[in-house]
């Protein structure tokens, strides 16, 4: 036992650091590159830590690029998507968890399958659809596509949460004279709140990461989201990796902030639902 006491933490930390070296290093390298002046980028061998750290890449991006616009676009689309998806999926999830209706199992299976299908396969018909609706180059078009592709997972997640809430509470509320609406809004919704919030984080991260629709359902610079803006940088700034990495840092920070805010709930909610990996 004594031997274990000494060696176990040493071994544990050694392997933990090995894992973290692989997982964290690229993020640090991105940060390090973004803080380098252009002259230092092509130094061989590369400096691990910038010799002359500077915010030059960030300020240049801010002046030259439309990053503020991309950020606003991304935020707007992600928040609207999240709001709509959470409301719609919490209702549908409740129906699947509580209300026995015909064809429930097949619809659920359909939704599970839909969750697994990548948006890129439907890109063409969705492009045509959005065009027919006159929603090309609009926020609404992108939000519609994002909501639809967040919904299957969100519904499954909310379904999982409601399934674990005992039905007796709703029955008691009903017996006490609350109506159908009252039961849902005063009992079901508050109980499902932890589920709701982790569902929101997932929809947000999903929408933040979305690339294919944002790339193809918009044409100009006006409606570009952060990932698309960054992707176009590759063409514009070709080999200026410090600018690219500064952009990459800017795209990543909001996602991390969101995660930091909701971390605890997120992880517990995560294990409960079926997840797209």
């Amino acid at each position, binding site marked *: 036992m004594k031997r274990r006491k000494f060696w176990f933490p040493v071994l544990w930390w050694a392997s933990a650091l090995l894992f973290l070296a692989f997982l964290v290093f690229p993020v640090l390298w*991105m940060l390090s590159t973004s803080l380098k002046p252009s002259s230092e980028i092509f130094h061989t061998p590369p400096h691990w830590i910038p010799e002359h750290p500077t915010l030059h890449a960030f300020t240049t991006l801010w002046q030259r690029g439309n990053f503020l616009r991309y950020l606003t676009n991304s935020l707007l689309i992600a928040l609207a998507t999240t709001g709509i998806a959470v409301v719609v999926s919490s209702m549908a999830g409740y129906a699947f968890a509580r209300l026995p209706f015909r064809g429930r199992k097949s619809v659920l299976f359909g939704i599970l399958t839909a969750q697994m299908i990548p948006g890129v396969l*439907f890109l063409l018909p969705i492009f045509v659809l959005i065009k027919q609706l006159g929603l090309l180059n609009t926020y609404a078009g992108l939000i519609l596509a994002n909501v639809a592709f967040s*919904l299957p997972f969100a519904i499954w997640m909310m379904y999982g949460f409601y399934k674990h809430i005992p039905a007796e509470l709703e029955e008691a509320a009903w017996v006490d004279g609350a109506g159908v609406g009252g039961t849902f809004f005063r009992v079901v919704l508050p109980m499902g709140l932890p589920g709701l919030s982790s569902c929101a984080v997932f929809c947000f991260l999903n929408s933040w990461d979305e690339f294919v629709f944002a790339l193809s359902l918009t044409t100009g610079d006006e409606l570009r989201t952060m990932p698309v803006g960054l992707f176009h940088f590759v063409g514009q700034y070709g080999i200026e990796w410090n600018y690219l990495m500064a952009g990459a840092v800017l795209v990543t920070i909001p996602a991390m902030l969101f995660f930091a805010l909701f971390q605890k709930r997120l992880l517990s909610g995560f294990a409960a639902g079926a997840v797209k990996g």
Partner: protein
Amino acid sequence: MTQPRKLTRFWRIQTSTQAFLFLTPALLLLGLVLLYPLLNTLWLSLQHKVLIRPDRDAFVGARNYIKAFVDPRIRAAALHTVVFTVGSVGLKVVFGMMGALLLNVNMRGAGWVRSLYMLPWLVPSIVASLVWRWIFHDQFGIANAMLQSIGVPAVNWLGQDATAMVAVILVDIWRGLPLMTLLLLAGLQMIPRETIEAAMIDGAQAIQRFWRVILPQMRPTLIMAGTLSLIGTFNSFNIVYVLTGGGPAHATEILVTRVFRVAFQNFNFGYAGTLAVLIIVLITLLTSVYNRLLNESGEEVQA
């Protein structure tokens, strides 16, 4: 007692009106943006339709499907998909299991390790691909710098068939490992403590304990997480598209990037529809396997 009657009424009202009301918004949205495009794709898949030659548009029935099965490009893409998916998922399961065992230990500072471990999952996939493209840069990349510092000659990572595939797999593992670990950790924590402790009292060594006690109990979780990851990895469009664009010379072209190329570079919409349908059939099969596993583990579709 009026209560039971009242309750029956409660559930009846719930069922008839609420189910309809509560499902309508979701079904409308899914119908419009998923089902309608799906039917559209099915219809498209039976046609010859190439954007630049509209005069040749025609209904061709199963001809596109026959073409798909003999198309050498598709055969190659299918092979790459298998290599990529099996390689990535296999390694994610192995290292995810190790990571889960690691994170399952209560140790001072373990909270920090756990948070940092999740980091790649928060990095948007486009960013992940760009960062790794920079790491793998043939002249100025840090990967080659590290190799050279230990005397290994530089490798043109993204410019050669085999190494490009290795790179794509590596990046997919990087981004997917946190999720896999999280799923396996959840499964690990469901194993009753007593089973593990009993094995310890028996004097079983840690490794024996792992193979004989932990692994058999983890089987359902491993299969489930593996299937889930299989479907996700199969669909890793963003990573492949941004990291290599399917290159060099189609060496990392997987099925989903191939569909994209057929549709938006060759503008062969009909054929792209056919490929999409075939992939969806495959995904549906995989999903039904996954659903069966969910059923067996008790998280079944019915409440």
